[in-house]
Structure formats: structure tokens, C-alpha cells
């Protein structure tokens, strides 16, 4: 088509005084934005291909580059905003569903940012984490109802399988295929070093990563890719993925182009075939079917592995969670509407689901109202961005948090949100060998470990300020939270008071 309806979104600004034409930008851009003009001996760029991943900016040795938002603008219109109009142009040209990646970027309220944390003054003492023990260890899993004793009256210390975490954070599901071998290696190694868990996602478990089994959650999703007996037994826990926050109600689609080599082998499907995960599990059309899958998996692993059921936060999440808590599952994972994805239809990503803060508060309260909170542990994800988000989630009632976007950021992701292209310049969301090698797991795992250690320090500081020296005493401790700028309904759902009350 000869008419360019859409002006490029970004501009590549090159400071010619600084550019030494080393061409690292050219070599590092999989989108082929940069090139070298031999005649004029200068670098030139085609910004129409730029996705603003900032790889060139980060590697330019003289800081000669920056990427800025193009100021070429359509006439302002509060109703028909620029992005909306451009999407129309795109669809009028392609006739296709719009695709996006990573989490919902729209300006819905972020409740974490409207919640404030308490601290001790006078009536009880803050605790200094540098001087006193400060415990962040948690156990996830079902707690038994009845304490049994032997004939001598001693407690029989048998318990359903539990997951032990050194801190209440885990790396959430990202499949091998949607992210690279090296990204998985980084997550697995970091989880092992940190004493937490990472999650295979629905891509099976590469044979090289079985050694990290004690720190692995193996996922069983609707496509059942890569699921076999050894796989189920390899991990510390099994997760049934019913839904994902970024795309509730739909399945997944990993294009054949990414099903190459080890990805195909690990998924147990032919090279080049599209990996399509159906929207539902076709053996689960209702809650009683879920119970059967939960127990099938428990049978297959001799009741040694806790089973997690992961669902997207949707409108009636409290009732759904109540059903899951009675299904035999040990842990419920809830993924909020801001959760990330390697690819999702834009309309679904941006319009379906509810905020994790509200979902968590509603579920925790519902399970308590029904007296079944002890049946399950609660893990929440879908945009946990910092240690303070973790603290707020725990105080609202979560046992632990799942992070994925934050982990990818630690690996270098710049949230350009074009994972679906498969040309991730950071070596994360790609299977191209020349790009995958850009993520050295020695660096990746170290950065993840650093990030989590930093959060752990911050969590301890925040706990100490509240006079709490064990994370258990924070869980569900909603008095430690206050809302600011929230209406009564929001406060009621969150189960917290307004600041000043």
C-alpha cells in the first residue's frame, strides 16, 4: 500500500557529534532500524521499524543515541485518541485482530498506589532488622484440620505437602518457547540460589533444567504440552493453569516459527507446528471436573506434590476461589488483569478481568467467611512491582506473590511490548539463536538474585517498622493498611480503613 497512514511512533535521535560509527546499534538491532552509509560514513536509521526496546541506547558506547516519542500528532480529540485512531488504521489495513504483549498499559487505577503502610510509634516498638531476627520464610499448602497424636500423646507431625519459600515471592509461569532457554536458565538458577520457586509455564521442562526440580513448579495447561510422568514428578509443585490475567477466557498460541529445535522436543510437538492451547481445558467444563484433574495429578505423583490452581481475576473470583478451595487444590494462584503475556489480543488484554488488589481482598475474605482459608494458600500476581506491593499483598491476605514482568525487567526487558514479534533484542522473548545468546544466564541469574535480595531487605525494613518480626504475622493483617483517595465501596472491598480513621 502506498499510503502510510501511520507515522512512526518513535524517533531515533542520534547525536552526530558523539557517534563514532562503531555500528554496535546496527549489529544489535534485530528490527534493522540502523544502518551504515558507506559513502557518507554516517549511521542512518529507519524509525518506522523501531519498537523502542532501547537495546541500541543501552549499548551505544558514547551515549549518542536516544529514542523519543514522535511528536507528529493527529488533531487532539478526547474521544478519538491517537492510539485509537491508529488501531483503526491498522485493522483497516490488515483485517486482523490486534495483538499485544506484556500487561495492560491503560490508565486503570493501581490500588497498590492508593494504599499506605503503618509503622509503630510509642505504644509499641519498631524492630530493627539489622539487629534482630526478621523472618520472611513461608510455607504454602493445605493445613490439616485435625491434630493427631500417637499412643504416647505425642503429636504426629504429618502434613500435606508444603512448599518452602525463603521469602514470599516466586517467579511466575513463562513457558520455554515464549521465553528463551537462557531466560529459563536465569530464572531456574536464581530461584535455586534464593530458595524460592520458578514456574515452567506451559512449555514443558527442558531436560537441562531437571536439576533445578526442587525449585520448579511444573505447569499443566489446556494444551498439555510437555506433560508426562517424569515432568510431573520433577518439580516441587504442579500448577494447573485455568487462566491468565492478561487474557482471561482465551487460550494461547505459540506460532510454528518459535517451535524449533529443543522447544519442539520439550513441548513434544513437531517442529514448525503451531502450539495452540485451547481456551478451556477440554476435560474441565465445571468445578467437579477440576477436582478430578487435581486428584489425577495427585495420584500420578503419589500425593507428594502440592497442586496449584491458577486462575485469572474475573468478576466472580471469590465464588470461583471458594470452589477451588474445596476441590482438593493446595494453593490458589490468582492473576490480576495487569499480568503480562507473550502475546494476547489487545482488546482482551486491555478490557477483560479485574485488578488483583480487589480480587485478592475479596477472595481472602470470602474464604475466611466460609472458614476454609486454611484449606489453601493464596498466591497473587498480575503486576507486583516492588517490595511494598508485596507487603501490601501479604497484609491484604496473600501467602505469597508471583512476579514475572519485574523478573523480566531485571533480565533487561524494557517493556517495548512486542514479544509477539519474536525478535526480542534482549534475548528474552525469542528463539533466534543469535538473539538468545545475548542473555548470559550468569548475568541474568545474578541480576534476579540481586533484585530479590534487595526486595527482601526492603520487606524486612517495612515489617520492622510495623513491629512485626515474622511475615506470618503480617498475612491478612489489614489493620496495617490504610487507603488514600478511595471511595467507601473500594475500602469495603479491600477491607481497610481510610487514612486518618
Amino acid at each position: 500500500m502506498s499510503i502510510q497512514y501511520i507515522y512512526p511512533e518513535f524517533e531515533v535521535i542520534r547525536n552526530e557529534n558523539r557517534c563514532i560509527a562503531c555500528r554496535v546499534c546496527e549489529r544489535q538491532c534485530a528490527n534493522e532500524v540502523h544502518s551504515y552509509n558507506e559513502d557518507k560514513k554516517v549511521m542512518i536509521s529507519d524509525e518506522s521499524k523501531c519498537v523502542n526496546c532501547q537495546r541500541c541506547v543501552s549499548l551505544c558506547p558514547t551515549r549518542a543515541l536516544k529514542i523519543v516519542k514522535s511528536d507528529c500528532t493527529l488533531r487532539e480529540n478526547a474521544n478519538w485518541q491517537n492510539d485509537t485512531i491508529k488501531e483503526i488504521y491498522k485493522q483497516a489495513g490488515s483485517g486482523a485482530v490486534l495483538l499485544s504483549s506484556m500487561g495492560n498499559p491503560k490508565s486503570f487505577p493501581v490500588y497498590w498506589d492508593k494504599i499506605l503502610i503503618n509503622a509503630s510509634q510509642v505504644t509499641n516498638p519498631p524492630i530493627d532488622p539489622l539487629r534482630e531476627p526478621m523472618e520472611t520464610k513461608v510455607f504454602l499448602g493445605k493445613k490439616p484440620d485435625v491434630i493427631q497424636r500417637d499412643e504416647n500423646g505425642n503429636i504426629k507431625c504429618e502434613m500435606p505437602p508444603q512448599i518452602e519459600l525463603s521469602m514470599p515471592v516466586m517467579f511466575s509461569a513463562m513457558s520455554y518457547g515464549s521465553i528463551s532457554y537462557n531466560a529459563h536458565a536465569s530464572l531456574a538458577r536464581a530461584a535455586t540460589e534464593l530458595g524460592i520457586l520458578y514456574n515452567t509455564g506451559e512449555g514443558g521442562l527442558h531436560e537441562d533444567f531437571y536439576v533445578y526440580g526442587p525449585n520448579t513448579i511444573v505447569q499443566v495447561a489446556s494444551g498439555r504440552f510437555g506433560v508426562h510422568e517424569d515432568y510431573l514428578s520433577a518439580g516441587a509443585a504442579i500448577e494447573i493453569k485455568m487462566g491468565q490475567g492478561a487474557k482471561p477466557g482465551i487460550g494461547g498460541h505459540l506460532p510454528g516459527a518459535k517451535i524449533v529445535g529443543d522447544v519442539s522436543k520439550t513441548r513434544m510437538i513437531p517442529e514448525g507446528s503451531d502450539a495452540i492451547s485451547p481456551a478451556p481445558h477440554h476435560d474441565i467444563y465445571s468445578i467437579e471436573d477440576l477436582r478430578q484433574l487435581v486428584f489425577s495429578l495427585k495420584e500420578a505423583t503419589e500425593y507428594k506434590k502440592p497442586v496449584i490452581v491458577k486462575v485469572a481475576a474475573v468478576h466472580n473470583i471469590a465464588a470461583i476461589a471458594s470452589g477451588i478451595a474445596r476441590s482438593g487444590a493446595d494453593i490458589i494462584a490468582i492473576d490480576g488483569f495487569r499480568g503480562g503475556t507473550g502475546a494476547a489480543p489487545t482488546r482482551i488484554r486491555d478490557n477483560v478481568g479485574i485488578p488483583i488488589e480487589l480480587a485478592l481482598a475479596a477472595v481472602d475474605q470470602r474464604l475466611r467467611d466460609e472458614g476454609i482459608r486454611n484449606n489453601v494458600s493464596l498466591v497473587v500476581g498480575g503486576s507486583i512491582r516492588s517490595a511494598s506491593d508485596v507487603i501490601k499483598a501479604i497484609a491484604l491476605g496473600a501467602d505469597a506473590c508471583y512476579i514475572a514482568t519485574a523478573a523480566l525487567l531485571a533480565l533487561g526487558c524494557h517493556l517495548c511490548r512486542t514479544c509477539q514479534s519474536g525478535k526480542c533484542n534482549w534475548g528474552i522473548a525469542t528463539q533466534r539463536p543469535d538473539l538468545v545468546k545475548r542473555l548470559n544466564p550468569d548475568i541474568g541469574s545474578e541480576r534476579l538474585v540481586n533484585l530479590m535480595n534487595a526486595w527482601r531487605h526492603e520487606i524486612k525494613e517495612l515489617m520492622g517498622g510495623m513491629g512485626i518480626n515474622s511475615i506470618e504475622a503480617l498475612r491478612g493483617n489489614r489493620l496495617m493498611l490504610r487507603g488514600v483517595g478511595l471511595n467507601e465501596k473500594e475500602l469495603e472491598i479491600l477491607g481497610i480503613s481510610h487514612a486518618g480513621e
Partner: protein
Amino acid sequence: MMMKREGEVRIPSGCAIAAVISKEGKRMSGQKIYECMKPMHDRSNGLGGGFAGYGIYPEYKDLYAFHMFFDDRDTRKLCEAFLKERFEIVQSEIIPTRKIPEITNEPIIWRYFVAPLKSMTEKMQIDEKEFVARTVMKINTQMKGAYVFSSGKNMGTFKAVGFPEDVGVFYKLEEYEGYSWTAHGRYPTNTPGWWGGAHPFTLLDYSIVHNGEISSYDANRRFIEMFGYKCNLQTDTEVITYIMDYLIRVKKLTLKEAATVIAAPFWSTIEGKEDMEEKERLEYLRKLFPSLLVTGPFSIVLGFDGGLMALNDRLKLRSMVVGEKDDKVYIASEEAAIRTMEPDAEKIWAPAGGEPVIVKVKDGAY
């Protein structure tokens, strides 16, 4: 904004506590316990004082003794009608008090000695204690103007707004004799003072006096409320009493086990245990009841039928000392209080954080 009533808002509170028990079951007059609060006068602020005595009603020892506050006569009549549907009321009377200028605005204070109707417990398929607990919970949550502040057998609590030493005089405690006594002086920071809000807090024969402000409150409350308890007063003492009732009566833990739940040893301490059975048990209880770990400063004395247990938080953030003399064991926030009860007390020591001190009256002596 109107100042909120107790029960409408959480009330932190500093305090003084004291207790005495005779291991031989020898009965002591209540006078000593209220006099021992005098040297700790400054630990209270006049907004609450109270006592629990065990073994004080030997003539009614098989009956539940309900001590109650009523706002007015009508409420009392209404409540009595309710009680009659559920219990045989063997005796009902005004609790005798002494008019003194230090204590004013008293509600109507009655006591009832009752036995649950078998037909009711059978209908509800629960045991007698559970039935009594539920009844107390029902009155205290649903009957406005009526409040049960003591519900055990052969024991009773006495509490009021005022300094504890005055409260003892008000209730004429010198006329009661018990094998153990606990005492509490209150320094609340968030209440105009309410009779029901004074301590000890009790349920059945469990009574708690507590000093400190716990930081785990809402985690503990929201957990325990899953099991039929209702934290109406929003005080630490209330929630700790329910936790102890749940762990000991419902979950059948021993006192020591219950102590390791609420003041659980640090994971690093558990790791270092050489006795494998103990290590396994501590680990199990911590994993099983994470939401019942109580953090922040507390020193408590739990009174129960035939004994006392004193316990500090695991960091020992509140003072508490123990002393002995002959068959008696004394516990108090300050040694001065112990010396008032027994000038020659021996072996004064400060128990370590999380280390329960359990004293039981010898079998058959109470």
C-alpha cells in the same frame, strides 16, 4: 467526629499485671492481689482495673458463674429470659460492691450460677463448654446493653473503670478466697474507658491479663474469627484469650504446645534444636498455625482451672518477673508488686522471651 465506643475501634493499651498461685491449693484472700497493684500505680491511667480469682465459688463449683454488666433493668430482664431458655439458673444475685468516690458510673452488676439445659446441647450436637462459649458470644455480640464478663466454673472476674487498687476495694475482694489470683491495671490510649473493656478478659475458665500492644493483631483476629469467635472489643487481650481457648480447648494442645504457637521460636532456633522430636514438633506447629503467631510486645498471664501460665513475646519486649516462696508462685510486671505480696519472695527471675512459666495446683487440691 464523636469518639468511638469500645468495640467500634481497635484499642491499644499499656498495662500492669500481677498474679499469685498456691501450688498446694491453699486459698488466699483477694486483698493481697489488689494491694500489690499500688506500687505499679503509674502503669495504669485510671481507665480500667480488674482481677480474676480461681476457686472462689466452692459451693457452686459445678455451675458456670456468669458475671454480667447491664445498662438498665429492662436489658437485664430480657437477658434473663434468654438465659432461661438455655440454662437452669440455680442462683442469681447482685454482685456486692462498696460505694467509694474513686469508682463511679457503675452499670448494673449481676451474677448467675447456671447449668446448660441438656436438651439444648443435645439439639445442637455440641458439648457443654462449646454451648456456653457460643451463648456468651451471642449475648456479647447481639444483645445491646448486656455483657458477660466472666463465664467459668468456680472462678470469677471483677473489673471496672478506675485504678486497680480501687477496683479491688469496690468489689470487696477481701471477702473472697481463691487458690490463684490475677490482676490488671490498664493504660488504654484510645478509649474513654468502658467497664466491659477492662481486663481480665475471659472465656469459660480462661482468663487473660496482658501488657503490651501486639503487632499481629489483625492477622490473629481474622484467623480466629473463622472459628466462631467474634472480636467485639478489638483488644489484644480478647484475641489472645480466644486463641488460647481455640488451641487448648478446641485443638487439644497442651499449654506448652500452645505457648510455642503464639510465641513460636525463630526458624533459626528450631533449626538448631538437637532433640529431633522437639524440632519436628516445633516445625509442625509453626507450619500449622502461622496465623496464630503473636508478634510485638506482650507479657500475659493466662489463668485456667487449676493453674496459671505466664508468657512473654519471643523478643521479650515487656517486663515480667517471677518469684517464689513456699508453695506460692508470684508473677508481676515489676518486682515491687511481688515484694508487696511477699516481702521474702525468693528466686526472683525474669523468664526469657517465649519461655512459658506454667504453674499447676497439685491434683485434687482445687
